[in-house]
């Protein structure tokens, strides 16, 4: 008796027929939707990032009248970090969008094959999956400025003081979320373990165990590792840090990926977490761009942040950097195609030819905030590098010079995994229609 269900569906569809998926876009705006998660279990980490992204674009709109004279419509579509909602958002926005910013690794995986068909570039700064760097395979996907494998390489580089051979005989625990995101660094770290003779002990944390990791930390205590590397997200970070403090694990032997370095996770622990390190591709500090945002957006009452001090947080500033990648790519495309409002294909070109130089960064007031990098047809990540940050009990401070990933060891792996992905999703489109220019 499928009948009545369908009446309902018909009513629903009738109601929608008017305006489904159509966002009123005025003549000259560029629609760059962002799949935000201000609700749900990951909201605490999502909100500062989303605020940073949104405020930077709003600042450009308020100060310069948009990018290249064209306003940017930076609308949010709420997903709650839920892949179903993410796909819904993608479908809803794709008609007019010039870019898709999927935000979770799960949503990225689902959207990635479709963007080839819909011809919309994916911008996944610092997330997504590492082989996306191979532009020959993933023509429409971009994950600047560094990939997870770059991050793993830089962390290993840092903890071995630049000489990976010194890791021989050591024991390194990878405490990771048991989820596609958390498993990302495994292939590379396994390769390193074999190559440099250290022992890698992956300790997965299930999504249900994020807040209570006593079993994992008992195992870590038993293993007596030389280092703990964390690939955590959301509530897992605070859980791990609390447990580490409780079991008196030496914090200076504990290093996290960039998503495990949110000020809010550490503020609660304060001095107890002193010495904890997190790699980050944006450096903290006072930058002119933040003052500009304060003048044009926060003071004007158009920001969603609760307190102006939130602007000093790493995650907020990272959001600003993310939007900068997008707007600079738009500028690059505008210059090349000599148009005002760029379309999705033009933006793809802009992203592929994005060149973030030192001069550009100081011009837009972000000098030292992110490492310069350049993307190309074969390099959709840029691999700019990152800094190690250390928690001093009240805030993160820069603890290293710019670290660079060991590309020689990563690239073959990227090629291999990209080919594997293309094979799994066969027939995967080639780049023939998108010449490299």
């Amino acid at each position, binding site marked *: 008796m*499928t*009948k009545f269900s*369908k009446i309902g*569906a018909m009513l629903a569809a009738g109601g929608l027929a008017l305006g489904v998926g159509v966002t009123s876009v005025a003549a000259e705006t560029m629609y760059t939707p962002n799949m935000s998660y201000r609700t749900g279990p990951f909201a605490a980490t999502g909100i500062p990032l989303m605020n940073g992204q949104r405020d930077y674009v709003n600042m450009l709109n308020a100060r310069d009248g948009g990018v290249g004279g064209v306003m940017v419509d930076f609308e949010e579509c709420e997903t709650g970090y839920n892949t179903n909602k993410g796909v819904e958002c993608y479908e809803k926005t794709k008609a007019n969008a010039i870019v898709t910013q999927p935000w979770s690794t799960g949503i990225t*995986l689902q959207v990635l094959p479709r963007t080839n068909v819909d011809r919309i570039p994916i911008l996944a700064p610092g997330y997504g999956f590492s082989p996306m760097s191979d532009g020959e395979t993933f023509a429409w996907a971009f994950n600047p400025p560094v990939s997870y494998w770059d991050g793993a390489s830089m962390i290993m580089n840092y903890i071995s003081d630049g000489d990976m051979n010194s890791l021989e005989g050591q024991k390194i625990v990878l405490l990771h979320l048991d989820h596609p995101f958390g498993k990302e660094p495994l*292939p590379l770290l396994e390769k390193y373990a074999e190559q440099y003779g250290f022992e890698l002990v992956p300790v997965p944390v299930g999504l249900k165990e994020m807040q209570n990791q006593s079993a994992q930390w008992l195992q870590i205590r038993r293993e007596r590792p030389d280092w703990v590397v964390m690939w955590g997200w959301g509530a897992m970070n605070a859980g791990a840090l609390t447990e580490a403090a409780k079991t008196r694990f030496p914090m200076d032997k504990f290093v996290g990926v960039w998503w495990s370095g949110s000020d809010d996770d550490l503020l609660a622990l304060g001095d107890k977490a002193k010495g904890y390190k997190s790699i980050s591709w944006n450096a903290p500090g006072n930058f002119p761009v933040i003052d500009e945002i304060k003048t044009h957006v926060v003071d004007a009452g158009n920001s969603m942040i609760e307190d102006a001090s939130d602007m000093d947080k790493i995650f907020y500033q990272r959001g600003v950097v993310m939007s900068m990648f997008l707007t600079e790519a738009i500028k690059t495309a505008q210059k090349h195609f000599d148009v005002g409002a760029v379309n999705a294909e033009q933006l793809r070109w802009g992203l592929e030819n994005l060149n973030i130089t030192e001069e550009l960064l100081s011009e837009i007031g972000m000098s030292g905030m992110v490492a310069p990098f350049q993307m190309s047809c074969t390099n959709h990540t840029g691999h700019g590098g990152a800094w190690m940050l250390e928690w001093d009990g009240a805030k993160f401070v820069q603890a290293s010079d710019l670290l660079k990933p060991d590309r020689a060891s990563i690239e073959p792996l990227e090629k291999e995994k990209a080919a594997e*992905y293309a094979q799994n999703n066969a027939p995967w489109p080639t780049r023939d229609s998108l010449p490299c220019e």
Partner: protein
Amino acid sequence: MLYRTSGQFKTSYESDQALFPVKQDAWLLMVILVAAYVVFPLTASEFTFKALLVPVLIYSLAAMGLNILTGFAGQLSLGTAGFMGVGAYACYKLTTIFPEMNVLVALALSGLFSAAVGVAFGLPSLRIKGFYLAIATLASQFFLVWLFEKWAWLYNYNASGAIEVRTMEFFGIVVTGPTASPVTQYYFVLAVVTIICFAMINLTRGRYGRMWKAVRDMDIAAELVGINLMRAKLTAFAVSSYVVGIAGALLVFFWKGAAEPNLFDIPLSFQILFIAIIGGLGSILGNFLGAILIVALPVVLNVLPETLGISINSATMEHVNDMIVGALIIMFLIVEPHGLARFWALIREKLIIWPYPH
């Protein structure tokens, strides 16, 4: 008036036991089928297919599977998502090991795997019932998701631990993968759901359905009148898991295109259970009504303000949405605790005697 049954005489037992003893029901079904097979495909946008129609059909199918077990045979299960996962992973393995296999055959076979797993986890139902059985099926839920995560062979040692759907053809038409057109996928899912729905309606009206209902209403009495409890319960588990497994495979192959293990975690089980409960336990129609309320309504509410030209923050809308849907669920359960299917049955009864009530 509209639903007047006077004048519709039944002169044989056969006509009295027909699927639609009242003519208007059959007409209504025809209208809906025409809408589903002709009107929607002609009018719906891509978004409507991907966010409304296809998910509603797939969730209805999963809830229908659960309803066989919980609504008809009275065995409470909290492991639905796990069995959906078995179907999805079986279909994935089948289509990667035998790339030549027809996708419909792979779907049908993957149902068999989940049926087998369902029967295995249904064995405790022979000794325990009620809440205790719910806990046992909960164990299957945890175990299966754990297995999807740890057994790398299941996802072909993919680095991300997720399964991805390659492009497959069905008699020359692309039905899965990114290049498949939403209309094709919708038709495929609709056809599968129609076939299974037809089979289930007849199954639940027939010998097995009666057996299950007898077990549900009082298992000791059923045993006394000669019903083999083991057979009744295990067939319920098998049929239910078969349908649920196919729903899981459809979910991944015809809707999402990729899936990670935690998709099949407990929230999905609960969602399916809510659809079945709010739609109406022991009913086939209820699954569709429940799916519309739980799956489609939030999507519609989300796009409503935009359609009406009201600008509202997306996150705020999400909170408002949760509140509205929550309130509606409570309201429906207060108005009619037996679910939406019963609600419709009452409306229909009133319609039959309208405008001259007793």
